[in-house]
Every structure is written in C-alpha cells, then in structure tokens.
C-alpha cells in the first residue's frame, strides 16, 4: 500500500489541524507517528481511514481517496483511544461485526486474542474497564489483518504487563502478515524499538520523516570539557545543551559529524530527540512572539 498526501489541509471551523502536509509512506513496515498534543496526529489518521474529508489538498492511498470509498477503506483499520465501538454491543457482537467489515479478518486469531486478554464474550462494551476496552481495540486491530493497520494510543488503561503483551503480539502478527502498521503514541521510550520509521508532526506540519537508523546517524550526543565541547559545537545545529561542573553535554542534529577526539560520543534516545526537537520549536515560537 502507498500513502501519499499532497498539501493536505484540514480545518475544523477556524482551527487548522493539518496545514499543507505533504509526505509519502509505503511498503510493509512499522511506523511511529509522533507529535505533541494537538500536532494533528489523530486528524491525519482519521483522514487515512476515510472518516471525513479534508478541507484542501489530497489524501491518496494507492492513488485513490479513502473518503466515501468502501472498496478502499475496508483495507484500513483504525483503532482509536475511544469511540471505536457502540456501547450497547457485546464483545461477541463486536468481533462478529468486525469479521463482516474487514475482508482479511482472522476469526480463530481473534478468539485466541480474546482469551489472551481474558475478555468475556457476553460482556457489554459499556461495562468494560478502560483497559479491557483498549484490549478489545487491540484484538480487532490485530485480527483485522488490514493492509494498513493504525493504532492511535491503543493502550489507555492497560497495565505495563498487558502493554508488553501487545508489543509481542504486534511483532508476531507482523511476522505472519507483514503490512503497513502505524502506531501513534506518547510512550515513546516503550515502543521506539518497534519502529522502522518515524513521522513527527508539529502544529499540523511535518517536522521530520526518517528511518530510525538515519535518525540515529543524524545526531550525536557529546560530552566533555566545556571549552572543548563549545569549540566543537560552534556553528553546528545544537538542539540541546546542559552544563554542570565544568562539563558540558550537547546534542547536535542534522550534521555530517566526524568523531571529535577527546570528547565522549553517545546517542540520545528517540524520546529525548523528540523532546529536544519539538521543544526547540516552542522556544523559537516564544522568541518570535
């Protein structure tokens, strides 16, 4: 499957959620969709699933628009934080309805997952705890086997043990049926190792789209003697710096950096990079105002 957006813009009345967003995603991979609250992640995912139409620009999946297009949107499964399922249905109903809607539904697998998460078939959606509601979403998302499977913060209320189970299941499911899986999350530290690519949105625009490897190669974390570090970092793109006791640590980004002699070289985690990159925007913003 190939996703392509061209100058994609979505406004809710006057509020701009996505602003002239152009990017492309294709191939079988697990992609992390990151961004601070209000960056436009959920809007982008709902446009992908064909939940509503954009205000301007194009949202294309295999060169077609997913909006009002069941022959395309049946290939896309979006599991959100909430509002996935109607309150009055039971777990059993939801699995049955999903089996009709998603053409690649794996009924046996859905049953197996229901057992793993210990969901009772007759329980009504309304009476599920937050964690069990999330589990139901995860079951539908994985069992749908959709060529594009999207999880938007799928584990609200799930404890650390069940979240880890989810990561295991996701990898297993991806192994059996490689497809495009998009995972949006704030728990970056927990899931960053699952990603092959990362898309970061910032105020409705694309901040970056990189493979995790390239992201690791495009930055460097340096520490050492304050003067030496400052000398090396001068005229380079410093996205983060701290100093303490005559020692200084900087994170440089988007540079072809040769290893500086005498300085300690290390890497920042994806979560740290995310914070530095999106925080810097805030600083710039504050200065501009």
């Amino acid at each position, binding site marked *: 499957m190939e996703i392509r957006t061209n100058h994609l813009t979505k406004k809710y009345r006057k509020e701009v959620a996505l602003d002239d967003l152009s990017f492309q995603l294709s191939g079988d991979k697990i992609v992390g969709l990151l961004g601070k609250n209000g960056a436009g992640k959920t809007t982008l995912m709902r446009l992908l699933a064909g939940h509503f139409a954009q205000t301007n620009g194009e949202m294309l999946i295999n060169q077609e628009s997913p909006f009002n297009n069941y022959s395309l949107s049946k290939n896309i499964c979006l599991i959100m934080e909430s509002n996935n399922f109607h309150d009055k249905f039971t777990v059993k109903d939801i699995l049955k309805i999903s089996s009709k809607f998603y053409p690649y539904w794996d009924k046996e697998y859905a049953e197996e997952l229901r057992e793993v998460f210990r969901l009772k078939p007759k329980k009504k959606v309304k009476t599920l705890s937050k964690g069990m509601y999330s589990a139901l979403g995860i079951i539908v998302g994985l069992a749908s086997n959709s060529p594009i499977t999207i999880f938007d913060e799928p584990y609200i209320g799930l404890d650390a043990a069940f979240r*880890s189970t989810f990561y295991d299941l996701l*990898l297993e499911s*991806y192994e059996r049926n490689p497809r495009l899986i998009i995972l949006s999350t704030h728990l970056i530290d927990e899931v960053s190792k699952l990603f*092959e690519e990362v898309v970061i949105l910032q105020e409705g625009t694309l901040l970056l789209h990189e493979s995790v490897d390239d992201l690791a190669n495009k930055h460097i974390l340096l520490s050492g003697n304050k003067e030496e570090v400052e000398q090396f970092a001068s005229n380079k793109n410093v996205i983060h710096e701290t100093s303490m006791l005559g020692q200084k640590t900087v994170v440089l980004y988007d540079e072809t950096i040769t290893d500086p002699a005498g300085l300690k070289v290390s890497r920042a*985690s994806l979560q740290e990079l995310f914070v530095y990159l999106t925080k810097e925007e805030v600083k710039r913003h504050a200065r501009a105002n």
Partner: protein
Amino acid sequence: MTERLKEDQPIFQQIAEMIETTIVEGELQASDKIPSTNEFAKHYQINPATAAKGINLLVNQEIIYKKRGVGMFVSEKARDIVIKKRKEQFYDQYVQPMLKEATRIELSEEQLTKWIKEVYNRGN
C-alpha cells in the same frame, strides 16, 4: 545472548556484538544455526528490520552465512575473524580508557603492571 539492550548505542550494532561474543565464547560454533531475525525481534521486542541489519553486518564480514530458505549459520572462520577484529579494537576500547583513568587517579605504572602480571600468572 540474554544481555539487555543499552540506550546509547545503535541496537543493530548491539545485536551484532552479542552474536560475536557468543561465537568467541564458543557457545555458538562453526556451522551452528543462529536464531532468525524474527526470533531476535521477538526476544528483544525490536523491529525485525533492525535485527536483520545487525545480522547483515556479520554476513558482510563473513562471520555468518545465509542458506536460502534454511536459515543463518556461523561460518568456518567466524571465530578467527571476530578475534582478529576485537584485538585490533582492544587498545582503543579498553587500554586507552583504562590508562586515562589510571593517570587521572595517579595510579603508578608499577601497580598497574603488578595487577596485569597477577592475572596472567594465575593462568588466565
């Protein structure tokens, strides 16, 4: 190969190094089959492409070879290759940092050599 992954080093490199260490220690021997990309992915909860990249690093150095449809195996000269490489890296990775700390804390050359001799005399 159950070591935990570190944060500050690329994961694919850590995967490659872990396999190398297992080969050097003799736990994996020539023509032994190594775990698949997906097994590594599941064990460490990492993306299979990352695991594949680590393994390919070893394939390129002829430490591991692939048999299509069968799996990946330790090559005949794997251990020699790894040991040769690690010997080349030994000074930079271990000796230099150790000497840096030794001078920092004013440890005498005498004391340092005494320790080294002790270890070698014990037959290790």
